[in-house]
């Protein structure tokens, strides 16, 4: 990184950034005051966004995090490209203000591939055109959606019923295989077991699948739109429930954004307990993911063993927090319920027990050759591709990345209870399974560490709700980095809520793992990614 000092403190970085803008770019970009969440900010004209973003990613070492589009009452659409720099733990927002009549922006995806799906989503929901994007068109909104209706626009009324187009409207898959006899075999959206709704078109010439075309957003519930104009209490219900298997993480992400806007200091005990509950959720989530992988290989006993551990962790969560999926626990300002003293020994014993059982299961799986044969070298994602697609979470960490929000941008109690980040390098199904096991072990260790040094005191403060503004809340959800961008208006109501869940980021790269494989490997590739459609589709 030639221009900006690495690891410098925020003020020094802001000064350096200002200097670089002046010297390198001749004052073309204007540093704006930092955001509420402490992000550096650059403002640029839409015609220059490609130059700027490419420079940030290719030369300065920033990673694309998310794109937030917002239509304020008074002016046109604002696009905020959020970048993170893991080495320094800093953020940079690039703001592009469009005139009210401006409907077209240059696409940054040819240069910053991680932004690909973000631009497609904004095109669908806001009706903006991204010039130079290789593939726009039907994405979130399926073929029977009325033409020219963009639900995230201010003038769209979320309560009104839609007038659908002809429901039989033809939709043709954008196939790429042209060999004689090639066809695309649809799988989904309804599956034969308990599986989430999504469709996969497997392009095949007979036995081997050459290429997979995923089709998502069957579960689009428009949570970003229905959150607008609602109280934070109401939006919290939505934040927790749009992806119930990661409810605590997403609730926490939303609360952290609200707390940043309201300048609310969370008590120490609440911060420590947030870490504890987030790790309890991760442990249970990973046990479920391991169950699914064992199930996908039809290893029945291992599947049952992992399912037992999962249910025991669900019961433990139910016992100590009142809810098996930790609903209704996190609130802006802290937590709604405390960890009872009499539950501490129970928690300690049960976590130790679960970790021990997972270890025993791992030891057996590692010597089951028929199981390993199905995972090894299946669904490979290379380190380069993982980086290019900006993949996150266990999927990225199985491909050599050590990205983890808990370590790079500590929140809750992660500044003291530091997680060790396990990484693997093969990028195949087995590497992803090992990452899940090792992360589960780490979660158990973190829970023990928090319990040993649990501070006393209050579990919540009442935030001063008079402030307005926007902030980004970031968490490491069980599946990876999640970004919750919130704007609160003067009335205290939510004006814009933008969620970038890890499943959205990682489904983008799923096709990399689903190329040139045998039919029977498809469920295994799917399970080893372990992504959620509820989380992706929102």
């Amino acid at each position, binding site marked *: 990184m030639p221009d900006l000092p690495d690891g410098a403190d925020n003020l020094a970085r802001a000064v350096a950034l200002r200097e670089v803008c002046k010297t390198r770019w001749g004052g073309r970009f204007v540093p704006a005051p930092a955001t509420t969440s402490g992000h550096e900010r650059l403002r640029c004209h839409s015609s220059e966004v490609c130059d700027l973003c490419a420079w940030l990613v290719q030369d300065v070492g920033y990673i694309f995090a998310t794109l937030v589009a917002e239509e304020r009452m008074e002016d046109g659409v604002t696009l905020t490209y959020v970048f993170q720099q893991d080495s320094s733990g800093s953020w940079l927002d690039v703001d592009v203000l469009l005139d009210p009549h401006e409907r077209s922006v240059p696409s940054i995806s040819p240069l910053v591939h991680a932004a690909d799906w973000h631009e497609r989503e904004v095109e669908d929901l806001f009706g903006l055109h991204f010039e130079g994007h290789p593939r726009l068109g039907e994405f979130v909104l399926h073929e029977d959606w009325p033409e020219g209706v963009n639900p995230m626009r201010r003038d769209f009324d979320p309560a009104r019923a839609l007038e659908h187009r002809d429901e039989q409207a033809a939709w043709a898959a954008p196939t790429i295989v042209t060999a004689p006899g090639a066809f695309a075999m649809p799988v989904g*959206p309804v599956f034969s077991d308990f599986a989430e709704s999504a469709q996969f078109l497997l392009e095949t010439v007979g036995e081997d699948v050459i290429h997979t075309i995923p089709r998502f957003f069957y579960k689009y519930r428009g949570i970003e739109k229905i959150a607008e104009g609602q109280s934070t209490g109401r939006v919290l219900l939505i934040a927790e429930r749009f992806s119930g298997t990661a409810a605590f993480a997403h609730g926490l992400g939303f609360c952290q954004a609200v707390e940043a806007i309201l300048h609310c200091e969370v008590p120490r005990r609440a911060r420590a307990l947030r870490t504890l509950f987030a790790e309890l959720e991760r442990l249970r989530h990973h046990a479920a993911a391991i169950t699914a992988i064992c199930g996908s290989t039809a290893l029945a006993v291992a599947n049952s063993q992992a399912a037992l551990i999962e249910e025991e962790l669900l019961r433990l969560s139910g016992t100590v927090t009142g809810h098996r999926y930790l609903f209704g626990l996190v609130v802006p300002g802290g937590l709604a319920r405390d960890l009872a003293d009499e539950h501490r020994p129970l928690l300690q014993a049960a976590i130790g027990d679960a970790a021990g059982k997972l270890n025993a299961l791992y030891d057996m799986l590692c010597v*089951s050759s028929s199981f390993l044969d199905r995972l090894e070298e299946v669904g490979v994602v290379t380190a380069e591709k993982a980086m290019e697609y900006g993949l996150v979470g266990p999927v990225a960490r199985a491909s050599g990345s050590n990205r983890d929000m808990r370590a790079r941008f500590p929140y809750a109690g992660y500044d003291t209870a530091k997680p060790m980040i396990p990484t693997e390098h093969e990028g195949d199904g087995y590497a992803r399974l090992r990452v899940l096991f090792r992360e589960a072990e780490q979660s158990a260790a973190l829970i023990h560490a928090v319990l040993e040094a649990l501070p006393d005191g209050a579990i919540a403060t009442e935030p001063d709700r008079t402030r307005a503004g926007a902030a980004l809340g970031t968490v490491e959800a069980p599946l990876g980095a999640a970004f919750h961008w919130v704007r609160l208006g003067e009335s205290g109501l939510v004006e814009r809520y933008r969620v970038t869940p890890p499943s959205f980021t990682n489904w983008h790269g799923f096709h990399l793992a689903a190329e040139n494989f045998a039919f029977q490997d498809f469920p295994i590739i799917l399970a080893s990614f372990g992504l959620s459609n*509820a989380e992706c589709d929102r």
Partner: protein
Amino acid sequence: MAGWVIKGARTGIRSSAYPAGPETAIGVSPGMPGDTAVDSPSDAEGLASLCPTGAMTAHDVSVVVDRGRCVHCFRCAQDARMPAVAWDPGFEWATYTDAYQALHAAFSRSLHIRFVDAGACGACMSEARQVNNPYYNMHRLGFFITPTPRNADILLVAGPVSDAMRDPLRKTYAAMPPPKRVVAIGACAISGGVFGPSYASAAGVKDIIPVDVIVPGCPPPPLAILHGLLLVAGRKPPAPRSSLAARADGRPE
């Protein structure tokens, strides 16, 4: 591979005593607010106003809970300024809709289930999956998952029915041979939950296809889903109605 056989055998039987006996483990259900008698109409109004989804209605000096709307936010139970809500720690919440007709007794010990995710958050599906796991093991009770709607007797649906899932849901229902019964699991599938109705989702499964049994909860715990299935099979009675609810709407207990 012999190791797995030994491991499985050593684990022994873990299945719940339910429905033959009571389930005694803790943490199997989050519980739900029950119909509550309070001291004054203003207390009733105050308690009911805590509910963000409109599941609680004040009737004179009582609060009546519409279980199909409760999303377990615990806000009614956590406000120290309000009278304590009567908490129901159980899970037998499933009940019939008006459309329900009893199945022939021949089905009572063999029912095949097709599952459709109509925009569920993942928690409902996770709980439905647990029903198939060793602790709950629905196979022992004669419930099976079938890979085709042509063999299905029960359509289990979770989620508020997102826009894009209306058609797949209708088609799945149409592909099932009669007699068929639809079970809606979770607050979203019953009432739209925190999502519907809106431009992107319906207010539950009943907007799209007829529903026979509802299983309240957010998500309904595995035993609640099991109760709903046993209800379809005619092997368990529906959730009882309290005298407070009967007095509030004039229908029998």
